[in-house]
C-alpha cells in the first residue's frame, strides 16, 4: 500500500481516564473488538472450554469434573464454579454467581475492576474488607460492570503496554524480574490476572490485605508447582478455607496460565506470547490491528496460528485435542485418586473419634502426601488450557499428583485395617451427595456436561457403584 505509516496518536487521552468509551474515541477499531468479548462464541468448536457459546449454556465445572464437587466442598468453589465467559462478564459473573464465592469482599475486584489499585491506595482495608456488594457500590455508577479495561494494559500517552496491578509488581519483585522486553510485555499484560494468587488471611481466615502471589523461590521462566506449594504451605496467612470431607485447613490455586505457560513450554521458549494466540492481528480494511476480542483460539478458527504454522486449521485443532484428551484422561485419574484418599481420611477421622486406634505416624504421612496430591491436581484443573499451554509439564505434574494421592491411599488403607476397619476395594465416593442442591440456586449435577475419560481407563479405578452418581 502507498500511504505513509500513521503513528499512534499521542496525548488525546486524559491521564487516569478509566472509561474505555473515551479511549475508543481515539482507537475505535480496538474498542469495537474489545466490546465483542460480550458476544457469545461459536458453539462446538472447542472440546473442553465450552461456556457462553452461541447456545448460551453456562458450563458447571463441578459437573464436568464431579470429583471436584467432593474436593472443593467447604467453600464457594464447591458451590458454584463455572467455565469463564469472556472479559465483558468479569464483574457481571461475580454478581451473578452464588454469593459464597464473593465472601472475601472488595479484594475480589483486584482483577475485575480497573479502579482496584486506586481504591486500595485511597481507602485501604476499608475497601478491601468491605462486603463485595458495598465495595462495588463505591465504584462510579457507570463503571460497576466494566471489567478488564484499556487502562489496565495501556499507557494513555503512547499506548505502550503497562500494568495496573500492584500484586503483579510484588510478584515480579519476588522472582527478581526487572526489564521487560516488548514480547514479554505481550505476556505480562495477561499475567496481571491469569496467575494464581491468595488473599492473605488472619488466623480466623478473615481478609488481612491485598492479593498476593505465591511465587517465593521462583524465577522468570521457572515458577514451578513445587515452588508454589512450598510458598502456600509456609504459614496461616495462605490458608483460605477448610475442606469439609477431611477437615483440613487448605490453601488454593487459581488459573495459573502464566506459571504453566512460562515454565519452559515449547511456545514460550520459541518467543511466542499470549497475545500472539489470543489477540492475533486481524485485517481491518487496508491495515491490521490486534484483535481485542480475547477468547479461545479454537473459536477464532485458529487464525492466530495460521501465520506461524503451515498446517491446516483442522490439523492444528486435532493436535490441540491430542494433548487435551490425554490431559483430561490423567486429570480423571488424579482427581478420583485424590477424592478416594479424601474419603479414607474422612473414614479414619470418624473411626478415630469413635475410639479406633489410627496409627498417628501413618496418618500424618498420608496427610502430607494428600496435600501434595491435591495442590498438584488443582494446579492443572484450574489452568485453563487442559495441558496445551505446556504438555510435557502437565504430564509431569499430573503423574506426580497420581503418585502422591495413591501413596496417601495405601498408607490409609494400612492404618484403617490395622485399626480393624475394613475398606471395599474401590472407595465409595458418594458424589451425588456433593453435587445435589448446591447454594441458593440449588444447583444439581448436569450429567450431560460431565467429561468422561477419552481413553475409558477410569472405569477400572472408579466403577459406577463407587462413584455414586
Amino acid at each position, binding site marked *: 500500500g502507498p500511504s505513509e505509516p500513521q503513528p*499512534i496518536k499521542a496525548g488525546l487521552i486524559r491521564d487516569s481516564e478509566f472509561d474505555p468509551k473515551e479511549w475508543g474515541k481515539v482507537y475505535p477499531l480496538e474498542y469495537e473488538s474489545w466490546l465483542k468479548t460480550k458476544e457469545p462464541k461459536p458453539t462446538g468448536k472447542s472440546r473442553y472450554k465450552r461456556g457462553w457459546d452461541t447456545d448460551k449454556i453456562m458450563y458447571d465445572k463441578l459437573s464436568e469434573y464431579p470429583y471436584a464437587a467432593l474436593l472443593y466442598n467447604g467453600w464457594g468453589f464447591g458451590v458454584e464454579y463455572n467455565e469463564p465467559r469472556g472479559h465483558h462478564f468479569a464483574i457481571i459473573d461475580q454478581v451473578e454467581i452464588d454469593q459464597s464465592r464473593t465472601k472475601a469482599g472488595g479484594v475480589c475486584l483486584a482483577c475485575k475492576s480497573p479502579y482496584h489499585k486506586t481504591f486500595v491506595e485511597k481507602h485501604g482495608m476499608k475497601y478491601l474488607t468491605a462486603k463485595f456488594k458495598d465495595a462495588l457500590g463505591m465504584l462510579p455508577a457507570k463503571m460497576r460492570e466494566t471489567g478488564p479495561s484499556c487502562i489496565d494494559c495501556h499507557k494513555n500517552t503512547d499506548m505502550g503496554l503497562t500494568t495496573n496491578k500492584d500484586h503483579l509488581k510484588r510478584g515480579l519483585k519476588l522472582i527478581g524480574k526487572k526489564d521487560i522486553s516488548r*514480547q514479554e510485555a505481550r505476556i505480562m499484560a495477561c499475567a496481571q490476572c491469569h496467575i494464581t494468587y491468595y488473599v492473605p488471611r488472619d488466623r480466623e481466615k478473615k481478609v488481612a490485605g491485598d492479593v498476593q502471589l505465591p511465587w517465593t523461590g521462583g524465577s522468570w521462566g521457572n515458577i514451578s508447582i513445587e515452588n508454589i506449594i512450598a510458598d502456600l504451605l509456609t504459614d496461616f496467612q495462605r490458608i483460605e478455607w477448610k475442606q469439609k470431607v477431611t477437615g483440613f485447613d487448605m490453601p488454593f490455586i487459581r488459573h495459573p496460565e502464566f506459571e504453566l505457560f512460562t515454565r519452559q513450554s515449547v511456545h514460550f521458549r520459541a518467543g511466542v506470547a499470549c497475545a500472539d494466540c489470543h489477540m492475533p492481528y486481524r*485485517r481491518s480494511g487496508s*491495515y491490521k490491528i490486534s484483535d481485542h476480542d480475547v477468547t479461545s483460539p479454537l473459536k477464532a478458527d485458529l487464525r492466530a496460528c495460521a501465520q506461524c504454522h503451515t*498446517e*491446516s486449521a483442522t490439523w492444528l485443532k486435532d493436535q490441540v485435542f491430542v494433548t487435551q484428551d490425554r490431559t483430561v484422561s490423567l486429570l480423571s485419574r488424579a482427581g478420583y485418586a485424590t477424592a478416594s484418599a479424601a474419603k479414607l481420611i474422612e473414614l479414619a477421622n470418624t473411626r478415630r473419634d469413635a475410639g479406633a486406634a489410627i496409627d498417628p505416624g501413618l496418618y500424618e504421612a498420608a496427610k502430607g502426601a494428600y496435600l501434595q496430591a491435591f495442590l498438584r491436581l488443582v494446579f492443572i484443573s484450574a489452568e485453563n488450557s487442559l495441558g496445551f499451554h505446556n504438555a510435557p509439564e502437565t504430564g509431569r505434574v499430573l503423574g506426580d499428583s497420581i503418585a502422591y494421592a495413591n501413596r496417601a491411599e495405601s498408607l490409609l488403607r494400612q492404618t484403617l485395617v490395622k485399626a480393624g476397619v475394613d475398606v471395599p476395594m474401590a472407595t465409595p465416593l458418594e458424589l451425588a451427595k456433593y453435587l445435589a442442591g448446591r447454594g441458593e440456586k440449588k444447583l444439581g449435577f448436569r450429567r450431560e456436561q460431565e467429561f468422561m475419560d477419552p481413553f475409558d481407563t477410569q472405569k477400572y479405578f472408579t466403577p459406577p457403584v463407587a462413584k455414586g452418581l
Partner: protein
Amino acid sequence: MIQMTWKKYLAGAGALALLTVIAFVPHGLLDQTSKPAFCNACHPMHAQYEVWFLTGLHRGIKCVDCHLPNNNEVNHLIWKGIDGTKDVVSFFSGVYPDHITATGHAKTVIKQNCIRCHNEMVSRISTGDRDCWSCHRRVQHNLNEFSYRE
C-alpha cells in the same frame, strides 16, 4: 573457520572490483541479474527458489525486492555488488555451509523491505523488535513437502 575469514576478505576485495564494473555496465545486465531465474542459476539457491515459487505468496516479486536495499538506487547497487560478489566467490570457492542462513545484515534488509511494501498494513501496529517472519514463517524458505497438508 580460517577458510571462512579468507572468504570474507576475498569477498570484500571482489566487491570493490565489482562496484567499479557495475557503475559502467549496460542496464541489460542489471536487469538480467535481478531476475529470480538468475539467482536460481546457482544450485545453492534452488531450494529457496523452489519455495519462493511454490508458496505463491510473493511469486509476483523478485528475490532482490527482499534481499537488496530498495530505499535508494545507489545503496541498492552497492549491496548488489557486495552480496553478489560474496555469493559468486562462495560458490566458486565452494566454501559455504550446507545449510545457508541469512546474515544479520540480510535480516535487516529483508525487514525493511517487508515494511516498505506493507507499510500501511503494519502502520497501526508496533513493529518493534521482532522479525515479521517470526510469525509469517511462510515467507522463509524452509518449507518442506509436508506443509499445507489437510
